[in-house]
């Protein structure tokens, strides 16, 4: 009985601490339409809208933090923020270091974009963002891999001729190809990589993961997630 009271007290305590706790959401802020900085300098994009909705449903106070992609996992595990919500694909390698919620974007296509249609992506010089599943895929495909720290630089390298093609999430590349006025185009076949995009959390943070998992599930169930995906990624994007 005493034990029971203690546990209840502890639960009440953690619950009240949970109320006061702010969940810090780590993102990159350089990967439209997933996440980017708008004209005001605030985090914006699909994940901003999704994250705010998830926090509302899970009754959490959330704060947005931007960080460098290279340091995004080390900073999470050392506790500088509590979640990664940055278009991060769920992969087995990452799952060894951190935990993921269920995916909030279904496994999506990655695509090659080049300046001319006759590029052979198996032998060309292909740029990709460092430490992404796309960079891993290019390295294995036999093409020459050119790595950059930010997504913006990978596309710029194709524009200035340094690379023949860029390999990235199709959802990221689609608006760029559309706005380029024919200067850039999709080349080769689309590739399916990873297990979709999920939120990354510390492995020990099971409580928070359960909360976000439930919130994502509720958004999947009532269809708001699909509406959000269509809003940011267009009619052709894969939905649940």
């Amino acid at each position, binding site marked *: 009985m005493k034990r029971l009271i203690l546990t209840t007290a502890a639960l009440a305590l953690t619950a009240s*601490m949970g109320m006061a*706790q*702010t969940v810090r959401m780590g993102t990159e802020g350089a990967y*439209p339409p997933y996440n980017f900085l708008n004209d*005001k300098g605030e985090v914006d994009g699909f994940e901003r809208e999704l994250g705010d909705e998830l926090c509302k449903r899970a009754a959490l106070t959330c704060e947005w933090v931007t960080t460098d992609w290279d340091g995004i996992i*080390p900073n999470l595990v050392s*506790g500088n923020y509590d979640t990664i919500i940055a278009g991060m694909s769920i992969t087995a390698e990452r799952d060894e270091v951190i935990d993921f919620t269920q995916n909030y974007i279904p496994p999506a296509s990655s695509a090659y974009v080049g300046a001319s249609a006759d590029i052979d992506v198996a032998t060309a010089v292909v740029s990709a963002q460092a430490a992404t599943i796309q960079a891993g895929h290019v390295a294995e495909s036999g093409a020459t891999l050119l790595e950059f720290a930010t997504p913006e630089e990978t596309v710029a390298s194709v524009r200035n001729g340094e690379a023949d093609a860029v390999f990235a999430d199709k959802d990221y590349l689609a608006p760029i190809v559309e706005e380029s006025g024919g200067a850039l185009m999709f080349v080769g076949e689309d590739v399916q990589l990873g297990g979709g995009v999920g939120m990354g959390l510390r492995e*020990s943070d099971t409580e928070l993961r359960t909360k976000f998992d439930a919130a994502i599930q509720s958004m999947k169930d009532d269809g708001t997630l699909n509406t959000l995906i269509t809003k940011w990624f267009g009619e052709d994007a894969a939905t649940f």
Partner: protein
Amino acid sequence: MFSFCTDPDTLSDLAWMACYLTTGKHLNFYYAFGTVLVLLAITAPTALAFGFAGASAARSRVLPLSLIGKGYIAIVRGVPDIAFFLFFVIALDQGLEFLKHQWVCPDWDQPIRQGNDFLVCQAAKVPLGNSPQWVHKTYSFFVAVFTFAIVFGAFAANVLYGAMRAVPRAQLETAEAYGMTHRQTFWRITVPQMWVYALPGLSNLWMVLIKSTPLLFLLGVEDIVYWARELGGTKTPRFTDYPHGDWRMWYFLVLLVFYLAFTRLSEVVLDRVMARLTLGQATTGGDAQRKAKA
């Protein structure tokens, strides 16, 4: 910012530019110049203090103290800056949280290291998880200052160590002949005279420090280079009211002008300081000044 900025598509070039250059994001960019300058203003004296302490320790006749001083100089000078900045900041942050954890949560029964995770109780977070964003920003700013001060302090220590030894032996012997103690000789003879030997090395360090501020982003402080890259990147109309092509070159040109102007200004100031320090010194420079006057 201006009232006419509501619909940028319809604006003339000049008005468009005025609106574009005053977006919230650009204000952050301008603000970052201030951050860099404040960082330099705080870091330089702190690093000099670290350097002075390191050099005095290295010269000490107490063996452990001199080993600490020499060890600090050798280790920090030997480790590549980037490795130091990546490793040290996380280690410092975790060290602080660990100590605070021992202090505020003595009853905590879970291990602090669980696999890859570093876990302290919520109350021991530095800064607290629910503190406003500006507290986090200020904290990472001072972590940056401290890290820069440690790194540049080691280089400064080496420069000052050499400078202390360059003070002519005859000066020290004269002091001893007057009956001054070691401490008195150090403070009244060595320290006032060493600066003229230290300044060329220290001014080099200052120049390197100015140019190493882009390392700030590694420390979680958004500096001018980060914003220049972010603002200059191609912007498509879907995600901004001000679409433009790859303008990074123009932004970096602004940075180039800023850094050049700043280093030039530093050179002018340092030259004056050097002239002032040389006055009356037993060096060729001091001799030349004396002859020019005569």
